[in-house]
């Protein structure tokens, strides 16, 4: 047991160690007991969910575990990283386990880490192994940390084990195809599946900023006349496909204000080449009948959003500054884990 050097009362195990698949439960139990300090409750073992993480590369598992471990103070999780490698032959499943504890030494919050890997022919065995180590009766999340999952045998095997799926549509490429993948995952028009998207959560500061602008009754009074919308996203080249994030944002605006349909456009903003490709850099709501407008523009430093409302004669009515820090992958994951029910607003944005 070691305490980390940053002063945080973090207790760590010695790292992943190889075990036989059949011994995973026993090995975890033994590690928990080894790690828990004497003053901890001897049979303390809390868990709130199983999180299955499909990683693209076996080398991914350590950074992914670190990402999830950073949430360990909030969620005692059993996480299972799985990988079926096309580069590996054979059906054999290799497994590693670790347990990590965090928090006050007397009452640590412990998470369990399991990694499993096989060749592409071993998918069936991986799925059966995962099925056997799910924490009974608790929610199961699948974090699909790869590209478009359709057609991937691991995806088809794991999805039946899960209550909810977390994806990052930024990994699905750009343009309509990314949103189509999301729609197919959710099963819009068919059997619904509960899906969370990290990329959707990246739009949250913009959505919050827009919502806040219209908290002001005078600005809210402009709303009936606002019927056009333009979203600019960072791009290196005008030929780049529309950013999935900008399209999600537009879908949200149109779903909230259906009259924008037909007068909404996304456009690449080459002047923002230094900003990560695909990020929303400005949103403008305007009127076709007067000079009323609500404009929001990304502010680079300190990172935030500047807002302005213009009255029907074009005069400045309000100005705002919103903080909008860039969320890490762990923070985005945290938000996705926090949403317990369906997210009809996200689904409406996709359908719009």
């Amino acid at each position, binding site marked *: 047991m070691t305490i980390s050097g940053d002063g945080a009362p973090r207790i760590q195990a010695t790292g992943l160690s190889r075990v036989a698949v059949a011994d995973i439960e026993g090995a975890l139990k033994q590690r928990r007991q080894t790690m828990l300090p004497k003053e901890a*409750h001897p049979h*303390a073992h*809390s868990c*709130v969910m199983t999180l299955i993480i499909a990683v693209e590369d076996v080398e991914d598992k350590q950074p992914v575990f670190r990402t999830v471990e950073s949430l*360990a*103070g*909030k*969620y*005692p999780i059993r996480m299972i990283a799985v990988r079926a490698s096309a580069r590996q032959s054979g059906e054999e499943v290799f497994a590693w386990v670790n347990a990590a504890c*965090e*928090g*006050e030494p007397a*009452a*640590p*919050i412990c998470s369990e880490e399991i990694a499993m890997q096989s060749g592409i022919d071993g998918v069936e065995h991986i799925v059966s192994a995962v099925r056997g180590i799910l924490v009974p009766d608790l929610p199961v999340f699948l974090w699909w940390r790869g590209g478009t999952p359709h057609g991937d045998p691991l995806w088809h095997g794991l999805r039946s084990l899960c209550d909810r799926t977390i994806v990052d549509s930024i990994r699905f490429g750009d343009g309509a195809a990314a949103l189509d993948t999301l729609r197919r995952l959710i099963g819009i028009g068919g059997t619904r599946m509960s899906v969370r998207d990290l990329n959707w959560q990246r739009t*949250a500061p913009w*959505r*919050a900023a*827009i*919502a*806040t602008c*219209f*908290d*002001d*009754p*005078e600005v*809210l*009074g*402009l*709303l*009936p*006349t606002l019927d056009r919308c333009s979203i600019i996203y960072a791009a290196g080249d005008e030929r780049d496909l529309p950013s999935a994030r900008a399209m999600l944002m537009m879908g949200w605006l149109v779903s*909230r*204000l259906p009259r924008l349909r037909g007068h909404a456009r996304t456009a690449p903003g080459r002047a923002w080449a230094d900003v990560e490709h695909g990020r929303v850099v400005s949103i403008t709501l305007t009127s076709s009948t007067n000079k009323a407008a609500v404009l929001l523009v990304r502010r680079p430093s*300190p990172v935030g959003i500047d807002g302005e409302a213009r*009255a*029907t004669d074009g005069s400045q009515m*309000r100005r*705002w500054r*919103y*903080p909008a820090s860039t969320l890490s992958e762990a923070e985005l994951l945290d*938000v996705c884990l*926090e*949403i317990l029910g369906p*997210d*009809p*607003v*996200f689904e409406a944005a996709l359908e719009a």
Partner: protein
Amino acid sequence: MAVAQAVNPFHEGLQLQGMTQPVQLCIFGASGDLTKRKLLPAIYNLVQAGLAPQAFSVLGCARNNLGDEGFRREFVDAVAESSEIRVRDADLLKQLCEQVYYVSLDFHDSAGYRTLKTKLDELDQRYHTCGNRVFYIATPASLYADITEKLHESGLLTPATPQSFVRVIMEKPFGHDLASAKTLNAELLRFLDESQIYRIDHYLGKETVQNILVLRFANGIFEPIWNRRYVDSVQITVAESLGIEGRANFYEETGVVRDVIQNHALQLMSLVAMEPPTTFDARDFRDEKIRVVEAIRPIEPADVNSVAVRGQYGPGSVEGERVVGYREEPGVAPDSMTPTYAALRLFIDNWRWAGVPFYIRSGKRMPKRVTEIAMQFKEAPHLPFRKAQVETPEGNVLSLGIQPDEGVVLKFGAKVPGPSMRIRAVEMDFGYGETFGAEDASPYERLILDCMKGDQTLFDRADGVEAAWSLVDPVLTQWAKTPAAFPNYAAGTWGPAEADALVQRDGRHWRRL
């Protein structure tokens, strides 16, 4: 200008971010202890968590001549010294302080309120807070009525537009007894609608107190056994290891019944005993909570000695250190009759709880700080293990820990491994901290936010306050008439022997905590 839409269509789905309407928060008693220790850190935390509205300003007022800069320095110091700050962000604090102002105000001076109104109007224009105001009255309770009247006279209690709101938060105590509570409520209701009044009992803002409701009403297994058929008795303990911590003036006037029993302990009792509300909205929830208090069997003056015990600590030892008795505390009268301990045996006269005693105890200088509710279940009707050695002479206990160990523990009997039948009591232990490690928001954060959102669910209503006073009033009256043989328990013990007798008369005993 087009007519405003009634509803902002962009809010849906953003509830998790706790968005609220633009608002200005005006604190009366801004230089006081509560403001420094609780309110300012809570405001910072709300802003840091993104829960306060963008259009937001804070105006402190008190008699001192602090000025804007002085109050801002106090804000910075309060955040620096608070242990309740989760993320320290100097830039954010600096930015927030630019939205913080101060007005020196004599609370009895009408002219001062006109200055206050001018300042609030000016800040409203500057920060576009749409005329929405929350007044937090963190002053001695004796000033509530006067401040409210002056606010009314200066027009500050009238919403500026049909869309805007004015709300007033008040700290307990709400009165000193039933008569004063009724008078205070009547005075407040001359100038305010009940929907504008937010009476804070910070206990209701605690996560674990709210978890009592979740445990009861979101789990199917508990409610069927949550009644007289299965519950033998209920014990509610609110124990403090601390003494009065230099607050002799306050405590001499208050005592344990007014400080804890009339509010915190009865809140816990009503949450644990209430019927399921139809919804968790303010009206349904508070209706049910108040019904329980109203159903508690009234204490007749002649019965006070048989259902209530009072105590006052003498010298003793707490947590390994010698401590003085209450009467030796600085500022306390040497012949003080103020109780620092009280125990009550109460009954709720309704179908669910008929005949089930609720034992409530609270005291200062107890062996440790602990607040819990323990549901003692009846014993199994028949034990078939005739030759078994049984170490569980009593039934199961479900204890709900409120502080410091927040969680739920179920005590039950289990077979000791081995060839013979031996039954031993074991505990199944759910600890909040071991499962949800995230630090809780302080009760004040939650309650200020609820007020800004217009949610009165976790605040007291006038009839609830009066119902609680009606229950304890006969006890206070009777005790005031008859002197007690104080001190009658040593600091560091669980209270006077009479309190043990109160429970033992029923064939029970206090839980060993």
